[in-house]
Protein backbone atom coordinates (compact mmCIF):
# COMPACT_ATOMS: atom_id res chain seq x y z
CA UNK A 1 0.00 0.00 0.00
CA UNK A 2 1.31 3.46 -0.91
CA UNK A 3 2.21 5.96 1.79
CA UNK A 4 -0.20 8.80 2.55
CA UNK A 5 2.36 11.38 1.33
CA UNK A 6 2.67 9.59 -2.03
CA UNK A 7 -1.08 9.49 -2.52
CA UNK A 8 -1.34 13.15 -1.49
CA UNK A 9 1.36 14.12 -4.01
CA UNK A 10 -0.61 12.45 -6.84
CA UNK A 11 -3.87 13.98 -5.71
CA UNK A 12 -2.48 17.51 -5.44
CA UNK A 13 -0.90 17.20 -8.93
CA UNK A 14 -4.36 16.33 -10.26
CA UNK A 15 -5.87 19.31 -8.41
CA UNK A 16 -3.29 21.68 -10.00
CA UNK A 17 -3.96 20.20 -13.45
CA UNK A 18 -7.70 20.66 -12.96
CA UNK A 19 -7.20 24.24 -11.78
CA UNK A 20 -8.65 23.63 -8.35
CA UNK A 21 -5.56 24.94 -6.52
CA UNK A 22 -2.38 26.76 -7.57
CA UNK A 23 1.01 25.00 -7.61
CA UNK A 24 2.04 27.02 -4.51
CA UNK A 25 -1.11 26.00 -2.65
CA UNK A 26 -0.51 22.36 -3.59
CA UNK A 27 3.05 22.62 -2.29
CA UNK A 28 1.76 24.19 0.94
CA UNK A 29 -0.75 21.33 1.39
CA UNK A 30 2.00 18.74 0.83
CA UNK A 31 4.32 20.59 3.21
CA UNK A 32 1.64 20.58 5.91
CA UNK A 33 1.67 16.78 6.11
CA UNK A 34 5.13 15.85 4.91
CA UNK A 35 7.43 16.48 7.87
CA UNK A 36 4.97 15.91 10.73
CA UNK A 37 3.62 12.58 9.48
CA UNK A 38 7.10 11.25 8.69
CA UNK A 39 8.48 12.30 12.06
CA UNK A 40 5.56 10.75 13.91
CA UNK A 41 5.93 7.46 12.07
CA UNK A 42 9.67 7.43 12.71
CA UNK A 43 9.12 8.22 16.38
CA UNK A 44 6.60 5.37 16.70
CA UNK A 45 8.98 2.93 15.04
CA UNK A 46 11.76 3.89 17.46
CA UNK A 47 9.34 3.55 20.39
CA UNK A 48 8.16 0.09 19.29
CA UNK A 49 11.76 -1.03 18.72
CA UNK A 50 12.90 0.28 22.10
CA UNK A 51 10.00 -1.25 24.08
CA UNK A 52 10.32 -4.55 22.16
CA UNK A 53 14.06 -4.53 22.89
CA UNK A 54 13.46 -3.91 26.61
CA UNK A 55 11.01 -6.83 26.79
CA UNK A 56 13.44 -9.09 24.88
CA UNK A 57 16.35 -8.16 27.17
CA UNK A 58 14.14 -8.78 30.24
CA UNK A 59 13.21 -12.23 28.92
CA UNK A 60 16.86 -12.92 28.12
CA UNK A 61 17.91 -12.06 31.68
CA UNK A 62 15.19 -14.33 33.12
CA UNK A 63 16.16 -17.22 30.83
CA UNK A 64 19.88 -16.73 31.57
CA UNK A 65 19.29 -16.90 35.30
CA UNK A 66 16.88 -19.83 34.98
CA UNK A 67 19.42 -21.82 32.93
CA UNK A 68 22.51 -21.00 35.02
CA UNK A 69 20.92 -20.60 38.42
CA UNK A 70 22.52 -23.60 40.07
CA UNK A 71 26.04 -22.60 39.03
CA UNK A 72 25.88 -19.06 40.47
CA UNK A 73 26.41 -18.69 44.26
CA UNK A 74 23.29 -17.49 46.14
CA UNK A 75 24.52 -14.04 47.21
CA UNK A 76 25.98 -13.40 43.74
CA UNK A 77 22.59 -14.20 42.21
CA UNK A 78 20.87 -11.67 44.44
CA UNK A 79 23.57 -9.02 43.88
CA UNK A 80 23.38 -9.51 40.09
CA UNK A 81 19.63 -9.14 39.84
CA UNK A 82 19.49 -6.12 42.18
CA UNK A 83 22.40 -4.46 40.33
CA UNK A 84 20.58 -5.08 37.04
CA UNK A 85 17.43 -3.35 38.37
CA UNK A 86 19.31 -0.28 39.63
CA UNK A 87 21.55 -0.06 36.52
CA UNK A 88 18.57 -0.24 34.19
CA UNK A 89 16.70 2.54 36.00
CA UNK A 90 19.83 4.70 36.28
CA UNK A 91 20.67 4.29 32.57
CA UNK A 92 17.06 5.03 31.61
CA UNK A 93 17.01 8.15 33.74
CA UNK A 94 20.33 9.31 32.27
CA UNK A 95 19.33 8.72 28.64
CA UNK A 96 15.79 10.04 28.83
CA UNK A 97 16.44 13.75 28.20
CA UNK A 98 18.43 13.15 24.98
CA UNK A 99 16.91 9.83 23.84
CA UNK A 100 13.40 9.70 25.32
CA UNK A 101 12.26 6.41 23.74
CA UNK A 102 15.37 4.40 24.61
CA UNK A 103 15.52 5.98 28.06
CA UNK A 104 11.89 5.13 28.67
CA UNK A 105 12.41 1.55 27.48
CA UNK A 106 15.31 1.13 29.93
CA UNK A 107 13.08 2.37 32.77
CA UNK A 108 10.50 -0.22 31.73
CA UNK A 109 13.24 -2.86 31.66
CA UNK A 110 14.02 -1.94 35.28
CA UNK A 111 10.42 -2.74 36.24
CA UNK A 112 10.41 -5.99 34.24
CA UNK A 113 13.62 -7.01 36.06
CA UNK A 114 11.97 -6.15 39.38
CA UNK A 115 9.16 -8.59 38.59
CA UNK A 116 11.72 -11.19 37.51
CA UNK A 117 13.64 -10.68 40.76
CA UNK A 118 10.56 -11.56 42.81
CA UNK A 119 10.15 -14.89 41.04
CA UNK A 120 13.88 -15.63 40.96
CA UNK A 121 14.27 -14.97 44.71
CA UNK A 122 11.12 -17.02 45.31
CA UNK A 123 12.71 -19.85 43.35
CA UNK A 124 16.03 -19.45 45.15
CA UNK A 125 14.35 -19.62 48.55
CA UNK A 126 11.75 -22.28 47.60
CA UNK A 127 8.99 -19.83 48.50
CA UNK A 128 5.66 -21.53 48.10
CA UNK A 129 3.42 -19.62 50.45
CA UNK A 130 0.98 -17.48 48.53
CA UNK A 131 2.86 -16.91 45.28
CA UNK A 132 0.26 -14.55 43.70
CA UNK A 133 1.49 -11.76 45.99
CA UNK A 134 4.50 -11.42 43.68
CA UNK A 135 2.14 -10.26 40.92
CA UNK A 136 0.51 -7.76 43.28
CA UNK A 137 3.91 -6.28 44.24
CA UNK A 138 4.86 -6.13 40.57
CA UNK A 139 1.57 -4.43 39.64
CA UNK A 140 2.05 -1.84 42.40
CA UNK A 141 5.58 -1.08 41.19
CA UNK A 142 4.40 -0.73 37.58
CA UNK A 143 1.49 1.50 38.66
CA UNK A 144 3.97 3.67 40.59
CA UNK A 145 6.12 3.93 37.44
CA UNK A 146 3.06 4.84 35.34
CA UNK A 147 2.31 7.77 37.65
CA UNK A 148 5.93 8.86 38.15
CA UNK A 149 6.95 8.74 34.47
CA UNK A 150 3.48 9.44 32.97
CA UNK A 151 4.11 6.25 31.04
CA UNK A 152 1.64 4.21 29.00
CA UNK A 153 3.90 1.11 28.79
CA UNK A 154 4.18 1.12 32.59
CA UNK A 155 0.38 1.46 32.79
CA UNK A 156 0.00 -1.52 30.44
CA UNK A 157 2.41 -3.57 32.57
CA UNK A 158 0.44 -2.62 35.71
CA UNK A 159 -2.85 -3.65 34.06
CA UNK A 160 -1.41 -7.01 32.91
CA UNK A 161 0.22 -7.90 36.21
CA UNK A 162 -2.86 -6.74 38.15
CA UNK A 163 -4.99 -9.08 36.03
CA UNK A 164 -2.48 -11.90 36.54
CA UNK A 165 -2.65 -11.33 40.31
CA UNK A 166 -6.46 -11.70 40.29
CA UNK A 167 -6.36 -14.87 38.16
CA UNK A 168 -3.61 -16.50 40.27
CA UNK A 169 -5.36 -15.57 43.53
CA UNK A 170 -8.51 -17.32 42.28
CA UNK A 171 -6.58 -20.36 41.06
CA UNK A 172 -4.68 -20.47 44.37
CA UNK A 173 -8.03 -20.44 46.23
CA UNK A 174 -9.36 -23.26 44.03
CA UNK A 175 -11.81 -20.85 42.37
CA UNK A 176 -10.24 -20.82 38.90
CA UNK A 177 -13.65 -21.29 37.26
CA UNK A 178 -14.54 -17.72 38.29
CA UNK A 179 -11.48 -16.29 36.50
CA UNK A 180 -13.34 -15.47 33.26
CA UNK A 181 -15.93 -13.27 34.99
CA UNK A 182 -13.33 -11.75 37.31
CA UNK A 183 -11.18 -10.77 34.31
CA UNK A 184 -14.27 -9.29 32.63
CA UNK A 185 -15.10 -7.13 35.66
CA UNK A 186 -11.46 -6.09 36.04
CA UNK A 187 -11.28 -5.15 32.35
CA UNK A 188 -14.42 -3.00 32.69
CA UNK A 189 -12.77 -1.16 35.61
CA UNK A 190 -9.55 -0.72 33.59
CA UNK A 191 -11.52 0.69 30.62
CA UNK A 192 -13.52 3.14 32.75
CA UNK A 193 -10.42 4.24 34.69
CA UNK A 194 -8.35 4.65 31.50
CA UNK A 195 -11.14 6.60 29.76
CA UNK A 196 -11.61 8.93 32.71
CA UNK A 197 -7.88 9.68 32.84
CA UNK A 198 -7.33 9.61 29.06
CA UNK A 199 -4.80 6.75 29.15
CA UNK A 200 -5.18 5.16 25.72
CA UNK A 201 -3.41 1.88 26.46
CA UNK A 202 -5.67 1.17 29.44
CA UNK A 203 -8.74 1.88 27.29
CA UNK A 204 -7.54 -0.52 24.60
CA UNK A 205 -6.65 -3.26 27.10
CA UNK A 206 -9.89 -2.75 29.03
CA UNK A 207 -12.09 -2.82 25.91
CA UNK A 208 -10.27 -5.89 24.54
CA UNK A 209 -10.40 -7.71 27.89
CA UNK A 210 -14.08 -6.99 28.56
CA UNK A 211 -15.20 -8.03 25.06
CA UNK A 212 -12.96 -11.12 25.14
CA UNK A 213 -14.49 -12.15 28.49
CA UNK A 214 -18.03 -11.56 27.22
CA UNK A 215 -17.53 -13.50 23.98
CA UNK A 216 -17.44 -17.03 25.55
CA UNK A 217 -20.77 -16.28 27.28
CA UNK A 218 -22.41 -15.91 23.85
CA UNK A 219 -22.12 -19.71 23.56
CA UNK A 220 -25.03 -21.38 25.33
CA UNK A 221 -22.92 -24.21 26.78
CA UNK A 222 -20.41 -21.82 28.36
CA UNK A 223 -23.14 -19.65 29.89
CA UNK A 224 -24.75 -22.82 31.25
CA UNK A 225 -21.43 -24.06 32.66
CA UNK A 226 -20.72 -20.69 34.33
CA UNK A 227 -24.21 -20.66 35.90
CA UNK A 228 -23.84 -24.19 37.28
CA UNK A 229 -20.23 -23.84 38.51
CA UNK A 230 -19.73 -24.30 42.23
CA UNK A 231 -18.15 -21.04 43.40
CA UNK A 232 -16.56 -20.74 46.80
CA UNK A 233 -16.15 -17.85 49.23
CA UNK A 234 -12.98 -16.59 47.54
CA UNK A 235 -14.78 -16.24 44.20
CA UNK A 236 -17.72 -14.42 45.82
CA UNK A 237 -15.41 -12.00 47.66
CA UNK A 238 -13.37 -11.34 44.49
CA UNK A 239 -16.53 -10.91 42.41
CA UNK A 240 -18.12 -8.44 44.85
CA UNK A 241 -14.87 -6.43 45.20
CA UNK A 242 -14.27 -6.29 41.42
CA UNK A 243 -17.91 -5.42 40.68
CA UNK A 244 -17.74 -2.58 43.25
CA UNK A 245 -14.47 -1.36 41.67
CA UNK A 246 -15.94 -1.51 38.15
CA UNK A 247 -19.14 0.31 39.22
CA UNK A 248 -17.15 2.97 41.09
CA UNK A 249 -14.86 3.67 38.11
CA UNK A 250 -17.83 3.66 35.70
CA UNK A 251 -19.61 6.13 37.99
CA UNK A 252 -16.49 8.30 38.00
CA UNK A 253 -16.38 8.12 34.20
CA UNK A 254 -20.02 9.27 34.03
CA UNK A 255 -19.04 12.53 35.77
CA UNK A 256 -16.57 13.44 32.99
CA UNK A 257 -18.08 16.63 31.55
CA UNK A 258 -15.35 17.01 28.90
CA UNK A 259 -16.09 13.76 27.07
CA UNK A 260 -19.31 13.78 25.03
CA UNK A 261 -19.74 10.01 25.17
CA UNK A 262 -18.73 9.57 28.84
CA UNK A 263 -22.25 8.78 30.06
CA UNK A 264 -22.96 6.33 27.26
CA UNK A 265 -19.63 4.56 27.90
CA UNK A 266 -20.36 4.47 31.64
CA UNK A 267 -23.78 2.96 30.86
CA UNK A 268 -22.09 0.28 28.71
CA UNK A 269 -19.78 -0.47 31.66
CA UNK A 270 -22.81 -0.81 33.99
CA UNK A 271 -24.48 -3.23 31.55
CA UNK A 272 -21.31 -5.35 31.36
CA UNK A 273 -21.03 -5.45 35.16
CA UNK A 274 -24.66 -6.61 35.33
CA UNK A 275 -24.04 -9.37 32.78
CA UNK A 276 -20.83 -10.58 34.49
CA UNK A 277 -22.52 -10.52 37.92
CA UNK A 278 -25.70 -12.24 36.70
CA UNK A 279 -23.87 -15.00 34.76
CA UNK A 280 -23.00 -17.17 37.81
CA UNK A 281 -26.42 -16.59 39.44
CA UNK A 282 -28.82 -17.16 36.53
CA UNK A 283 -28.62 -19.17 33.35
CA UNK A 284 -28.51 -16.21 30.94
CA UNK A 285 -28.74 -18.41 27.87
CA UNK A 286 -27.02 -17.36 24.65
CA UNK A 287 -29.46 -14.65 23.48
CA UNK A 288 -28.79 -11.90 26.02
CA UNK A 289 -24.95 -12.02 25.82
CA UNK A 290 -25.19 -11.99 21.99
CA UNK A 291 -27.49 -8.96 22.02
CA UNK A 292 -25.21 -7.18 24.51
CA UNK A 293 -22.09 -7.97 22.43
CA UNK A 294 -23.66 -6.64 19.22
CA UNK A 295 -24.99 -3.55 21.04
CA UNK A 296 -21.50 -2.89 22.44
CA UNK A 297 -19.97 -3.27 18.97
CA UNK A 298 -22.48 -0.75 17.58
CA UNK A 299 -21.80 1.50 20.56
CA UNK A 300 -18.04 1.34 20.00
CA UNK A 301 -18.50 2.37 16.34
CA UNK A 302 -20.78 5.24 17.36
CA UNK A 303 -18.47 6.37 20.19
CA UNK A 304 -15.41 6.16 17.94
CA UNK A 305 -17.24 8.25 15.36
CA UNK A 306 -18.46 10.82 17.90
CA UNK A 307 -15.13 11.28 19.70
CA UNK A 308 -12.83 11.06 16.67
CA UNK A 309 -11.16 7.80 17.79
CA UNK A 310 -10.71 5.49 14.77
CA UNK A 311 -9.33 2.63 16.90
CA UNK A 312 -12.62 2.41 18.83
CA UNK A 313 -14.63 2.30 15.61
CA UNK A 314 -12.23 -0.41 14.35
CA UNK A 315 -12.79 -2.48 17.51
CA UNK A 316 -16.57 -2.23 17.00
CA UNK A 317 -16.31 -3.26 13.34
CA UNK A 318 -14.01 -6.19 14.16
CA UNK A 319 -16.28 -7.47 16.96
CA UNK A 320 -19.41 -7.21 14.81
CA UNK A 321 -17.70 -9.08 11.94
CA UNK A 322 -16.42 -11.89 14.14
CA UNK A 323 -19.78 -12.17 15.92
CA UNK A 324 -21.76 -12.49 12.67
CA UNK A 325 -19.40 -15.15 11.27
CA UNK A 326 -19.22 -17.15 14.49
CA UNK A 327 -22.98 -17.10 14.97
CA UNK A 328 -23.52 -18.32 11.42
CA UNK A 329 -21.20 -21.31 11.91
CA UNK A 330 -22.47 -21.88 15.47
CA UNK A 331 -26.20 -21.97 14.65
CA UNK A 332 -27.02 -22.22 10.98
CA UNK A 333 -24.11 -24.30 9.70
CA UNK A 334 -25.22 -27.18 11.97
CA UNK A 335 -28.58 -27.55 10.23
CA UNK A 336 -27.30 -27.19 6.66
CA UNK A 337 -25.45 -29.71 4.48
CA UNK A 338 -21.71 -29.04 4.71
CA UNK A 339 -21.36 -27.79 1.11
CA UNK A 340 -24.29 -25.36 1.51
CA UNK A 341 -22.91 -24.15 4.86
CA UNK A 342 -19.53 -23.33 3.29
CA UNK A 343 -21.21 -21.68 0.29
CA UNK A 344 -23.46 -19.53 2.47
CA UNK A 345 -20.73 -18.84 5.06
CA UNK A 346 -18.25 -17.86 2.36
CA UNK A 347 -20.83 -15.60 0.71
CA UNK A 348 -21.53 -13.90 4.06
CA UNK A 349 -17.80 -13.39 4.62
CA UNK A 350 -17.37 -11.92 1.12
CA UNK A 351 -20.39 -9.63 1.60
CA UNK A 352 -19.01 -8.48 4.95
CA UNK A 353 -15.61 -7.85 3.37
CA UNK A 354 -17.26 -5.86 0.56
CA UNK A 355 -19.32 -3.81 3.05
CA UNK A 356 -16.28 -3.20 5.25
CA UNK A 357 -14.07 -2.20 2.35
CA UNK A 358 -16.76 0.14 1.08
CA UNK A 359 -17.57 1.72 4.44
CA UNK A 360 -14.45 1.30 6.57
CA UNK A 361 -12.60 4.33 5.18
CA UNK A 362 -15.75 6.44 5.45
CA UNK A 363 -16.50 5.45 9.07
CA UNK A 364 -12.92 5.40 10.35
CA UNK A 365 -11.90 8.40 8.23
CA UNK A 366 -14.77 10.49 9.62
CA UNK A 367 -13.94 9.29 13.12
CA UNK A 368 -10.34 10.44 12.58
CA UNK A 369 -11.56 13.89 11.50
Amino acid at each position, binding site marked *: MRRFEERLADETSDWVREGLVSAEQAAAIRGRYDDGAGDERWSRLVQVLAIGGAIAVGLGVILFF*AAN*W*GEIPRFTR*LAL*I*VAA*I*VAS*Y*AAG*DRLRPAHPHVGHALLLL*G*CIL*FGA*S*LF*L*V*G*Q*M*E*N*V*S*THDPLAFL*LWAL*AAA*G*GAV*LFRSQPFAALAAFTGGAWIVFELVDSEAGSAALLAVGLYAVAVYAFGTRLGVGVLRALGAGGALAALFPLTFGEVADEVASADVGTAAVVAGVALAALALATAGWLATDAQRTTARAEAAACFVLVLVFCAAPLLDLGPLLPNVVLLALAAGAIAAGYATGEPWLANVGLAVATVEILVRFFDYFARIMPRSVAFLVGGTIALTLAWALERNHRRIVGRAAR
Partner: protein
Amino acid sequence: MSTRRILFWAFVAVQALVPVTIFGLREATAALAPHVVIHAMPLDPRDPFRGQYVAVRLDVGYNTPPPAAREGQVVWVHLQRTPTGSRGDYASLTRPHGTSIRGHAHGGTIDFGLFRYYVSEDDAERWQNAFAGGNVYAELALARDGRPQLRRLVTR
Protein backbone atom coordinates in the same frame (compact mmCIF):
# COMPACT_ATOMS: atom_id res chain seq x y z
CA MET B 1 17.83 17.58 44.66
CA SER B 2 14.31 18.16 43.35
CA THR B 3 11.26 16.35 44.72
CA ARG B 4 10.96 14.48 41.42
CA ARG B 5 14.55 13.17 41.69
CA ILE B 6 13.95 12.13 45.31
CA LEU B 7 10.77 10.31 44.26
CA PHE B 8 12.61 8.61 41.41
CA TRP B 9 15.42 7.29 43.60
CA ALA B 10 12.96 6.28 46.32
CA PHE B 11 11.03 4.35 43.65
CA VAL B 12 14.22 2.56 42.54
CA ALA B 13 15.39 1.93 46.11
CA VAL B 14 12.08 0.29 47.10
CA GLN B 15 12.31 -2.06 44.12
CA ALA B 16 15.91 -2.95 44.93
CA LEU B 17 15.08 -3.51 48.60
CA VAL B 18 12.05 -5.78 48.10
CA PRO B 19 13.99 -8.82 46.78
CA VAL B 20 16.82 -8.14 49.27
CA THR B 21 14.29 -8.07 52.14
CA ILE B 22 12.54 -11.28 51.07
CA PHE B 23 15.92 -12.99 50.75
CA GLY B 24 17.22 -11.53 54.04
CA LEU B 25 14.15 -12.52 56.06
CA ARG B 26 14.20 -16.07 54.73
CA GLU B 27 17.93 -16.41 55.32
CA ALA B 28 17.66 -14.94 58.83
CA THR B 29 14.88 -17.40 59.72
CA ALA B 30 16.97 -20.25 58.35
CA ALA B 31 20.05 -19.15 60.29
CA LEU B 32 18.32 -18.65 63.65
CA ALA B 33 15.60 -21.32 63.59
CA PRO B 34 15.97 -24.99 64.56
CA HIS B 35 16.27 -27.34 61.58
CA VAL B 36 14.42 -30.64 61.34
CA VAL B 37 14.35 -33.36 58.71
CA ILE B 38 10.95 -34.84 57.84
CA HIS B 39 9.99 -37.49 55.30
CA ALA B 40 8.69 -35.84 52.10
CA MET B 41 6.47 -37.15 49.33
CA PRO B 42 5.66 -35.70 45.94
CA LEU B 43 2.17 -34.26 45.56
CA ASP B 44 1.61 -36.41 42.49
CA PRO B 45 3.60 -39.66 42.81
CA ARG B 46 3.02 -40.61 39.13
CA ASP B 47 4.32 -37.31 37.77
CA PRO B 48 6.26 -35.51 40.51
CA PHE B 49 7.84 -32.83 38.30
CA ARG B 50 5.86 -29.81 37.22
CA GLY B 51 8.23 -28.00 34.90
CA GLN B 52 11.32 -27.05 36.84
CA TYR B 53 10.07 -27.83 40.31
CA VAL B 54 8.64 -30.66 42.31
CA ALA B 55 5.68 -30.03 44.61
CA VAL B 56 6.13 -31.91 47.88
CA ARG B 57 4.07 -32.48 50.98
CA LEU B 58 5.28 -33.56 54.38
CA ASP B 59 4.76 -36.98 55.90
CA VAL B 60 4.95 -35.84 59.53
CA GLY B 61 3.71 -39.16 60.90
CA TYR B 62 0.90 -37.68 63.00
CA ASN B 63 -2.00 -36.31 61.05
CA THR B 64 -5.02 -36.22 63.38
CA PRO B 65 -6.06 -32.81 64.73
CA PRO B 66 -7.25 -32.57 68.37
CA PRO B 67 -11.02 -33.27 68.63
CA ALA B 68 -11.75 -29.64 69.59
CA ALA B 69 -10.05 -28.25 66.45
CA ARG B 70 -12.29 -26.32 64.07
CA GLU B 71 -11.84 -26.37 60.30
CA GLY B 72 -8.92 -24.10 59.36
CA GLN B 73 -7.72 -23.66 62.97
CA VAL B 74 -3.98 -23.59 63.66
CA VAL B 75 -2.66 -26.86 65.07
CA TRP B 76 0.85 -27.73 66.28
CA VAL B 77 2.35 -31.21 66.09
CA HIS B 78 5.12 -32.03 68.54
CA LEU B 79 8.18 -33.54 66.86
CA GLN B 80 10.31 -36.34 68.22
CA ARG B 81 13.75 -37.07 66.80
CA THR B 82 14.23 -40.55 65.25
CA PRO B 83 17.32 -42.05 63.55
CA THR B 84 15.95 -41.17 60.06
CA GLY B 85 14.40 -37.79 60.86
CA SER B 86 11.75 -36.13 63.00
CA ARG B 87 8.28 -37.66 63.47
CA GLY B 88 5.14 -36.20 65.03
CA ASP B 89 3.82 -37.86 68.20
CA TYR B 90 0.84 -35.70 69.25
CA ALA B 91 -1.11 -32.63 68.15
CA SER B 92 -2.19 -29.66 70.23
CA LEU B 93 -4.16 -26.45 69.84
CA THR B 94 -1.53 -24.58 71.88
CA ARG B 95 2.15 -24.63 71.08
CA PRO B 96 3.75 -27.55 72.98
CA HIS B 97 7.18 -27.38 74.64
CA GLY B 98 10.04 -28.63 72.54
CA THR B 99 10.18 -28.68 68.77
CA SER B 100 6.84 -28.48 66.99
CA ILE B 101 5.56 -27.81 63.48
CA ARG B 102 2.56 -25.63 62.63
CA GLY B 103 -0.28 -26.72 60.36
CA HIS B 104 -4.02 -26.23 59.89
CA ALA B 105 -6.94 -28.56 60.61
CA HIS B 106 -8.42 -29.43 57.25
CA GLY B 107 -11.00 -32.10 56.49
CA GLY B 108 -10.18 -34.25 59.53
CA THR B 109 -6.41 -34.16 58.94
CA ILE B 110 -3.61 -31.65 59.46
CA ASP B 111 -2.44 -29.70 56.43
CA PHE B 112 1.18 -28.54 56.62
CA GLY B 113 1.06 -26.90 53.19
CA LEU B 114 2.75 -27.69 49.93
CA PHE B 115 6.33 -26.87 49.15
CA ARG B 116 8.08 -26.23 45.90
CA TYR B 117 11.61 -27.37 45.33
CA TYR B 118 13.38 -26.18 42.19
CA VAL B 119 15.84 -28.56 40.57
CA SER B 120 17.88 -28.40 37.41
CA GLU B 121 17.05 -30.57 34.41
CA ASP B 122 20.21 -32.63 35.06
CA ASP B 123 19.11 -33.50 38.61
CA ALA B 124 15.48 -34.27 37.78
CA GLU B 125 16.06 -37.97 37.03
CA ARG B 126 17.98 -38.52 40.27
CA TRP B 127 15.13 -36.97 42.28
CA GLN B 128 12.54 -38.94 40.32
CA ASN B 129 14.30 -42.20 41.31
CA ALA B 130 14.70 -41.07 44.92
CA PHE B 131 10.98 -40.28 45.18
CA ALA B 132 10.15 -43.67 43.67
CA GLY B 133 12.28 -45.31 46.41
CA GLY B 134 10.52 -43.26 49.12
CA ASN B 135 13.79 -42.01 50.62
CA VAL B 136 13.46 -38.25 50.14
CA TYR B 137 13.46 -36.01 53.21
CA ALA B 138 12.83 -32.27 53.54
CA GLU B 139 15.19 -30.20 55.60
CA LEU B 140 13.01 -27.52 57.19
CA ALA B 141 13.77 -24.42 59.22
CA LEU B 142 11.02 -23.93 61.79
CA ALA B 143 10.19 -20.27 62.41
CA ARG B 144 9.42 -19.02 65.92
CA ASP B 145 5.72 -19.82 65.50
CA GLY B 146 6.47 -23.30 64.12
CA ARG B 147 5.86 -22.35 60.46
CA PRO B 148 8.01 -24.63 58.27
CA GLN B 149 10.33 -23.19 55.62
CA LEU B 150 11.80 -25.64 53.11
CA ARG B 151 15.58 -25.31 52.87
CA ARG B 152 16.46 -28.30 50.71
CA LEU B 153 15.62 -31.89 49.93
CA VAL B 154 17.96 -34.66 51.00
CA THR B 155 18.07 -38.40 50.34
CA ARG B 156 18.70 -40.99 53.06
